[in-house]
């Protein structure tokens, strides 16, 4: 029987537990503070990241895994009869997908690798990896799994709010929300990652409270009474995340939910105080 291995990258923000349970391989992106380089999720984790961020005089940067990094990982997990589904962070946001594609072409004869552009990020990507792994465990084929990933992506919703658009702007990932940068009033945009995989604004309000309220309204508009699995991701704000989950569960049909922390690579581009919700119909 074909063994299907799932690979994703560290921007997926899946928990260690999920990694182990589902046997998902996670390739780390890199975070650079000045001349220091850290491997996301390996030698830098959310708690130390945000501390470093606060202390650092310069903004950190991120970089994708090189094609060689991918090649080594693929070779490592490859075996006769294995197929690899490698789901990456949105190509519009990172060169990771590109690296994976290059690695695949370099390994053409040696391994059966399918690269998928999630057009998503953080747990939006993570969810796809988890779903893929579950489907693989259930014995589905590569085609079926990829189709499933597509449909989950299609049906899921992502909303996030940032404390300031500065990080997105300076990191160059502000995408379609660029017009909102520089507004002199404390305006909180509700952002999403749109169908093309870019950051895009959905709405804008004033103040954190209103922003949270608006995110919930949007979820209501999207799902009504449909059952959803809710994941709340945060950067060092467990309490806010729990409160948000409670508020959502009050007005929506949420049989299951979980929490995760936004990893350092995501953190470089969104900044501290970011709150995100990922909703997937069950």
């Amino acid at each position: 029987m074909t063994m299907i291995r799932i690979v994703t990258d560290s921007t997926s923000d899946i928990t260690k537990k999920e990694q182990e349970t589902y046997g998902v391989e996670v390739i780390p992106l890199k975070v650079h503070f000045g001349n220091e380089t850290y491997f996301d999720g390996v030698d830098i984790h959310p708690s130390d990241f945000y501390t470093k961020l606060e202390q650092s005089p310069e903004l950190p940067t991120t970089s994708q895994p090189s094609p060689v990094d991918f090649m080594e990982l693929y070779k490592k997990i490859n075996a006769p009869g294995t197929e690899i589904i490698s789901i990456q962070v949105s190509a519009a946001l990172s060169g990771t997908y590109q690296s994976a594609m290059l690695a695949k072409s370099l390994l053409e004869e040696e391994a059966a690798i399918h690269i998928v552009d999630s057009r998503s990020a953080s747990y939006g990507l993570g969810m796809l990896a988890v779903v893929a792994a579950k489907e693989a465990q259930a014995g589905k084929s590569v085609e079926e799994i990829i189709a499933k990933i597509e449909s989950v992506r299609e049906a899921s919703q992502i909303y996030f709010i940032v404390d300031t658009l500065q990080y997105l702007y300076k990191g160059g990932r502000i995408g379609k929300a660029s017009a909102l940068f520089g507004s002199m009033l404390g305006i909180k945009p509700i952002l999403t990652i749109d169908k093309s995989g870019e950051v895009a604004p959905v709405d804008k309000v004033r103040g954190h409270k209103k922003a949270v309220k608006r995110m919930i309204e949007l979820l209501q508009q999207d799902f009504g009474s449909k059952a959803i699995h809710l994941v709340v991701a945060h950067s060092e704000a467990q309490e806010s995340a729990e409160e948000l989950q409670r508020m959502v569960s009050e007005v929506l049909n949420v049989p299951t939910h979980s929490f995760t922390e936004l990893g350092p690579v995501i953190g470089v581009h969104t900044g501290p105080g970011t709150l995100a919700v990922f909703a997937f119909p069950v």
Partner: protein
Amino acid sequence: MSKQVITGEDFTAMVLAAAEQLRSNQDQVNALNVFPVPDGDTGTNMNLTMTSGVQELQSRRSNHLGKASEALSRGLLMGARGNSGVILSQLFRGFAKSVADLDEADLVQFAAALQNGVETAYKAVVKPVEGTILTVSKEAAKHALQQAGEMNDAAAFMNEIVQAAKDALARTPEQLPILKQVGVVDAGGQGLVHIYEGFLKVLQPGAADWVRLNAPVIGVPSRIIESGHELAESHRSAQSHIAVEDIEYGYCTEFIVKMTPKGQADFHEEAFRNELSAYGDSLLVVADDDLVKVHIHAEEPGTVMNHAMKYGALTRIKIENMREQHSDIVSGDEAVKSEAVPAGENSQPGSASSKPAGLVAIAAGDGLSDIFRSIGVDLMLSGGQTMNPSTEDIVKAIRSTPADTVYVLPNNSNIVLAAEQAKELADKRVVVIPSKTIPQGLAAAIAFNGNADVEDNEKAMRAALRQVRSGSITYAVRDSHISGIDIHEGDYLAMLDNEIAVAGPDQDHVIKQLLDRMLESGDEIITVFTGQDAGEEQTRLLETYISQRYPDAECEFHDGGQPLYYYLISVE
């Protein structure tokens, strides 16, 4: 011999006299403002509106009544400022339509035209309020219709109209409670009465001489270009004179001094200005390097020039005998310069529409303009001296916005009608979001979504207006008594959602009381925009107060730079 018809020339004389009557009484009309606040003056707005109408009328003089009134109507429409100005323009629009094909009108036709004006004006206002200029115009027209058939003397007929208007004006406090409270009649209605009085003056016997002698120099305040490099021909002419006998300084004198090196060394602008001011008024002195431009209305132009010659040779000398000037010698370059500052980076007049939707907002204050632009407004329009831009200003702003649909945020209850009127005149799709305050306008601008369709946007923006409370701090320009509050001239006034909320001599106390009334749960978002005249110390006190008393509230301070209002406060 009694006059029985009104020709185009009669009408022109009547309008000129009306404009003059309005102009010379504008302060009195301004004093009738219900709120004793320093802006939004009905008298000034109506005067500026009328001036625009007169300019157009004079540029297209005709003995054909229809053509003359059409010219007036056109000018009024474009120059309309403030709600009263807009209604005035609608009154004459209806009038003009009615007499369009007439060379001259008999009294019955004149009355019918007045009535048509009334109907047009009522239609233009979404919610007509009785006890205002509308009522006065309505009563006057009604009475005119009743009398026209019985009379054959224009003077007596007009007198009837004036009397009916005055009676209606006197009744306005009975119809609008707040007028009664404050103890005034309606300002717009009073302005209209002055207009009818002007009409009457011309129609009375012996008026012919009056017209010749008193025909006003409709001097319009033009923008003074004070930049040293632009000694442009900006003529700051005084407002018109009433009667020849009243002109104290009869010669409008202008020249440029080209200073010699010694002259330049001796020249001190302040001292020079002081010396000249003894010789007349309307003095303007602009100095740049070795050139000094002088403008003065003096009785002895020679003396003035002798004085200036001490510093160098005189050039570009122009002297005019103002007593000889007739109303039709209004120089063409004394146009009312629009106060619009179309400073959006995207605005290019006449440029092709480049996006589906755009925003125009009206505000006075550089800081406020910056803020509006930073949240996506394409073009900012300032209201000028009375804080009310004209219909034409708004039309121009709409045209300069490179979008197919333009949303207009008037941000002032006295500008909403002008914005609606601009909508009719612009050749684009325009949506007026009736914001009555700056905070409302900001909320609406934030709710705007460039990608949403018009219905959704309009709905969202209108809803946003209701979700913010607007407060402001200004000062009282006279004594008053409103809503049980005693106001003394010079008191600080706090307005809350366009009503007077607090008044008192201690600014700090007034602001705190306003804030306390604006906040409910204590965790709202407070935004304070400091004005041009806001005191640093007071602002600091305010910041401290908010952080101590409302620790759960989110608070932002911004420099709005607005005139007349020390603070604008938004709570949402």
